């Protein structure tokens, strides 16, 4: 996995697209341009950190349409909108849909880079969270069915004796397997186990 972010610019106006790509390139970013929403969708982005610089007004599906489509597809690239005319309705819609920013053209370099930083930071955070959840899921998947049942009992706050009664095993066996699953999940304490349980719960929703 390359750590260098890739910035996607979707802008139908060629001269503006070229200018933006030039600017991003001069600032040291790797960037890729697309003339329409369709162009972007035809070339699925590589799994790299990055963000989307998206013109609101595009021929065919608009920038807002593309944003919605990406969300549906689970593509989590943060979106910065560019607009020639800041109309309130569109900006509210975009921000509600999770846009990082809504920038009016002509965009000042500082504002653009600031938005890019935030977008990339958000992307990094999202990636980190996603990776951790993956790890967690993998660990959880490694538990035996008995260990998973004991884990649920612990998370529900039941004492070992009661868990043993319910599972028809000895309390000592419960204690043994509890220590085992804590090692498998990488948790140091019962409280940490609780937090893990919460996050797992969150991921499965």
């Amino acid at each position, binding site marked *: 996995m390359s750590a260098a972010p890739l910035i996607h610019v979707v802008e139908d*106006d060629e*001269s*503006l697209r*070229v*200018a*933006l790509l*030039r*600017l991003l*390139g*001069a*600032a040291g970013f790797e960037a890729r341009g697309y003339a329409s929403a369709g162009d972007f969708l035809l070339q699925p982005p590589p799994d790299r950190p990055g963000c989307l610089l998206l013109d609101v*007004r595009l*021929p065919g599906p608009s920038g807002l349409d593309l944003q919605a489509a990406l969300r549906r597809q689970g593509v989590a690239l943060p979106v910065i909108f*560019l607009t*020639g*005319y800041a*109309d309130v309705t569109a900006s509210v819609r975009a921000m509600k849909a999770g846009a990082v920013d809504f920038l*009016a*053209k*002509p*965009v*000042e*370099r500082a504002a653009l880079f600031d938005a890019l930083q935030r977008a990339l930071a958000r992307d990094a955070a999202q990636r980190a969270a996603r990776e951790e959840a993956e790890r967690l899921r993998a660990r959880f998947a490694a538990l035996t069915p008995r260990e998973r049942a004991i884990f649920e009992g612990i998370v529900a706050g039941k004492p070992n004796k009661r868990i043993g009664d319910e599972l028809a095993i000895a309390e000592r066996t419960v204690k043994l397997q509890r220590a085992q699953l804590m090692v498998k999940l990488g948790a140091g304490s019962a409280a940490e186990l609780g937090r893990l349980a919460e996050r797992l719960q969150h991921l499965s929703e």
Partner: protein
Amino acid sequence: MRFLAVCCFLLAAVATAGETRHVLVLYSSHRLLPANLEAEGGLRETIANSTELSAEFLDYPRFEGESYVRILMTFLREKYALRPPAVLVVGGEEALAFLLDHRAQFFPTVPVVHMGVTRSFLRSIPPLPADVVGVPIEYDFSGTIEQALRWHPRARRLVVVTGAASWDREFEARLRGEVSRFQDRATAEFLAGLPTGAVLKRLGELGDDAVVFTPGYFQDGEGRMFAPREAARIMAAAATAPVYGPFNTFLGTGIVGGSMPSFAAMGRQAGLIVNELLDGAAPAAPRLPVIMPTALNVDWRQVRRWGIDENAIPGDAVVHFKALTFLEEHRKEAIIAAAVFLFQAGLITVLLVERRRRRRAELSVRNHRFELAHASRLAMAGGLTGAIAHEINQPLGAILSNADAAELILESGADRRDELREILADIRRDDLRASEVIRRLRALLARHEVERQPFDLNAAASDVAAVLCAEAQRRRVTLEIQPATTAAMLVGDRIQIQQVLLNLVLNALDAVADAPEDRRTVVVSVESDANRIAIAVRDRGHGIAPEHLPQLFDSFFSTKRQGMGLGLSIARTLVEAHGGRIWAEPGPGDGAVFQVEFPAAGATSLPSPGPA
């Protein structure tokens, strides 16, 4: 006057004065002398129609002498014996004298009315019998002369013309007595009893220091006989100075006028007395005027001819022959005509004022329409703000980003000149692009003087499409322009026509707003042929309800919730100002077509085709 005389003979007379009463008039002089004719006119005017009037005359002074008188009297007595008069009228002093002399043999019991007898004559004879009555007359020689001298202040000579007959000599004598009154005003010169030729020659030599007075004459120095009126006429015609006379019968002969009794009035006065006598009044009974009045009579033509001061004519003077002014003659008609004329004039004025006011109002409406057209363009532009901002901000954004990129490149210290050059070229291009957008908008929106210039409708339509393409894109509508294959030259105001197009295209964009994707198309086509230039704006939208078609171009008609209803009304104003027409019709299949048609500008009068 003396030319008359009456006799009435009355025999046993009275008796038979049966149904038709008979009045006998006897004149001194010839019955056809103007004075006698006038007097008889007055008589007949007054005396009842049923009364029979006979007239006889002594024919004095042409015939006189005892035997003549005797024979005449016998003749008259015999003539009227079987038809005796009920009243006798004598006209003139000789007739009165004749009657008085022979009354015993000539209808002695018939009452007598005299006329034309002077007061001085009456004083010179014994008092009249009680059954002889009448109103005396007076000829005002002095008054006439005095008036003449007053009207001609420069006159120093008073020329008096008289004749040779016995009557003429009597006048001469009287006049010689009267002119002495004027001796300190003028020198009197008598042309008495001269041959007419000599008289006329003398009169023809007079200067403006003279006035002439004449009672006319019966006979001149050569024995030629005249009616006095005729004598007056030839004298007035020959004289180079104004001529005055004492008899109103002279009026119209060329004399200026004089202080005169009226012979007609005299006759009427006599007639009145006759009537009373016929009605059975005692001859003494009528209360009679002391004397017939005299009046200053004047011939207006002579007043003008001799330059008499009009203000010097007394108000009570009788002015003759004054051509009545139109107003005097047709006063009533004139008033009506004037009223009608004034009414018409008033009406015309009112109509003109109205027309002027209407034209002014129309002009002001037109101006307001153009104002409104401008306001409406601004409003349309307001609606297009998004599209316009987008169009301008695109190149501005590109410029800014390019500049930023160039700056970063320079800061990096790397030698990337080619890239920098490219960037600068792009900046220049985008700058021009932005300014072009602004130019187009400015051209469309700026308040401008209405122009009449030839321009190509194709180019105008393309400009409008350029302004609207961003808006069409925003609304996801395909805007297609189909220019005419040849130049479509129109003479007029390009911006106003573009406004019409802008309006029609925006309407079309509205119309397809809710249409499915495949119908969101607006087509603007321009056609040009020898006779017409036409623009059609087609959409495939919701179409126009047939009931809306007639009102479509009316002010304040709108089917849109936010529409003012002015756009199409203004469009029509603008199109009609260019001699064109605009209408809407259902599109083929669906939607609507707005057609604008202009008569083609005469190709010969236009510069060679090409965009303005």
